[in-house]
């Protein structure tokens, strides 16, 4: 059995401790907002926060994050009101939407560590998040916008 702290709630799961966190979230805890895109830490669709830091859940064995604080897109805000989500809505970023949980989680982790990111900071923090719909230009603009919204809040 592995004990997890997901979005502030304690969860006990009984499974093979080498199971990637991604599949524990999706298949065992029903948190389907975190997505599977590659399984090898190449696309960022599965990004969650572990103790506030962006992590690729597809290559993170669940045993590694036992008792650490895990935040998924569902836990970022109760109602889509996180500054990153508001900026995303303002700039109409999403297209198919599949990569966007990961984009948003990467952006939120970046802003938590670097409240005023430069374009170069954004490139570094988000070039691991592939978007096949090509929303990159809006992602970049929305990260800047979220940085501004953060200050207002």
């Amino acid at each position: 059995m592995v004990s997890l702290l997901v979005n502030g709630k304690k969860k006990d799961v009984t499974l093979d401790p080498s199971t990637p966190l991604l599949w524990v979230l999706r298949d065992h805890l029903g948190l389907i907002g975190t997505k599977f895109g590659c399984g090898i830490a190449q696309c960022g669709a599965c990004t969650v926060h572990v103790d506030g830091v962006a992590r690729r859940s597809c290559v993170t064995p669940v045993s590694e994050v036992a008792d650490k604080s895990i935040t998924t897109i569902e836990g970022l805000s109760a109602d889509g009101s996180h500054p990153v989500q508001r900026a995303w809505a303002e700039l109409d970023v999403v297209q198919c939407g599949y990569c966007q949980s990961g984009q948003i989680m990467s952006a939120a982790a970046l802003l938590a560590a670097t409240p005023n990111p430069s374009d170069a900071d954004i490139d570094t923090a988000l070039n691991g998040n592939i978007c096949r719909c090509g929303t990159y230009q809006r992602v970049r603009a929305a990260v800047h916008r979220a940085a501004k919204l953060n200050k207002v809040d």
Partner: protein
Amino acid sequence: MEILPNLSRRDFIKTSALVAGGLVIAFVVPGVRRFALAAPPAANKLPAPNAFLRVGNDGVITVLLAHSEMGQGVWTALPMLIAEELDADWSKIKVEHAPASTLYAHTAYGMQMTGGSSSTWSEFDRYRQIGALARTLLVQAAAQRFGVDAAACRTENGKVIAGAQHASYGELAELAATLPVPENVTLKNPKDWKIIGKPTKRLDTPEKITGRAQFGIDVQFPGLLTAVVARAPVFGAKVKAFDARKANLVPGVVNVVQVPSGVAVIAEHFWAAKLGRDALQIEWEQPANAPVDSVTLREQYHKLAETPGTAAAQTGDAISALKTASKILDVEYAVPYLAHAPMEPLNCTVRVSTDKCEIWTGTQFQGMDQQIAAQLTGFKPEQVEIHTTFLGGGFGRRANPAADFVTEAVQVAQAAKAAVKTVWSREDDIHGGYYRPAYLHRARIRMGANGKPVAWHHTIVGQSIVAGTVLEGMLVKNGIDATSVEGVADSPYIKSVADHRVDLHSPKNSVPVLWWRSVGHSHTAFVMETLIDELAHVAGKDPVAYRRDFLKKHPRHLGVLNLVAKKSGWGTSLPAGRARGVAVHESFGSFVAEVAEVSVEKGQIRVHRVVCAIDCGVAVNPETIVAQMESGIAFGLSAGLFSALHFKDGRVQEANFNDYRVLRLNEMPKVEVHIVASSAKSGGVGEVGVPPIAPAVANAVAALTGKRLRELPLTLPS
């Protein structure tokens, strides 16, 4: 004003006794194969979502989409069409995917589907008519209630108003549902449009920024199992024998079954199914045909291009004209196989019961999927229920005449006798076929004294994407698959040449191929637009001025070309180490020109800025059009700079995003989009941004380095 002619009553199906009362409208466009309503079903039997529009007593307007939302924005654009005519309160609009039914057949293609950049133009009339019909009924209801003439009523923001009296659509819905269907409806004059043409934010954003949006891969219900399938490592190979003992030992694995495509491991959840799949031992029976090899294939195509093919276009006698010429440009172009690699790996959930087959998936091809699932299960098509989820990208991969991922999922569920979600890994997707075919072009061109081509012989070699499919009879004419030559055979450049000929070879091999965002234009625009640029260079002319000369009788090409030249600062100087390249191309009824600004850093091409001009006729949602141009440019840059599949011994060498490279955020140029104001019939938007980008970049690279790159992805010799 448009008045719909001769709408007979049976074109509208309207019923009241539904979800919480209210008005429900289903609608069949005259002339399209009709929904088989021999006798109208009793109102309470009609499945609730079997309609285009529902006006609830609570005022919520539910729009049912006959097309799939895969990022391109139909979730917003089609409701805009209805809301315009309905004078709806935009904040009350709710959207759902329609179920699979012939009721939702594509107005031009006769089958329920999303593709060919056709959703908006093909629904432009139907969705507006539905809105107008509902408005008419609501006005009549209000007139009755207010005791006034319908002519005394006006509508605004979800209300009917007559003098001092007013009522919301929700209040009127029930009464409206009892009224007779009008014989015809009148559509607004475009000058009165309030919603069409207004940049409108997406309606699917709230669920997509919170993780609530449901994609096919997210389908969950009690008892649902997950399958991962081991498929043939070489196309056409069949399972000879397999050993599932190790797979069965994986905790969570519940079953291992053989299906025509391979061996499926079925488990309680994905990870167990994947581990089980990886633990399978399978002996494959190799197919009889020689394994595909990229190097050999290239040689074979090169040789074929030297032989006469089937003429796709011909005027004069290009072959003789080139025989006697002393100086000709003789060039060869090549593009590789490409995977669509939508962000959401393929998946499909199937539950077969005694009286129906239920399917949950993100598909672009409900019409075909339903037919094929019916054949597999022995049900009537109506007994196959398709629940379309959001699509995590499609790009053509989820519109397969062979319905491969649906077929397999039905077979898995049947073999397992359980409800099963079949999920593909990324490796399965990259290896799974249905690629954009590899193509080779050879062009032989003789220039005249005026610096323009006087003879042009163009040969295209590559697999037909429809050969061997049910669409072959419809789409292949006189041996020509139009999708292989579109953009060349109808090119305004080639057509202006007195002696020209376009030849096609459609060789066959075992690699399954399919349309890929922008289809034939994904290679033909690259070839034609870099060729014309090269001819401009040979002629010593400016590339924009040279093109203008060919496009005099093509005002819409010319319009976007001139606009992009102006907005990009064409002809003005750039910092050292940078250059611009241009391309203009027509596809799917729209015209797009792009200028790319590039540099070369450590041998790598970098695209800094792209200016795009589009004329797509009436622009329904400019916000979506801009987003789709950004999207098409990014998608085209992936193919233009990075992506390629290579075959060795029949096996695809790439497997995931580490070696099947696509554009990343740090490689995204700054994109500026300009829309030409137009009242012409709407053209497509979803695909049309793709074709011009690779040639615009290649032309910029040629301007910068003097090197003409004739293969994709563009690679500078080291």
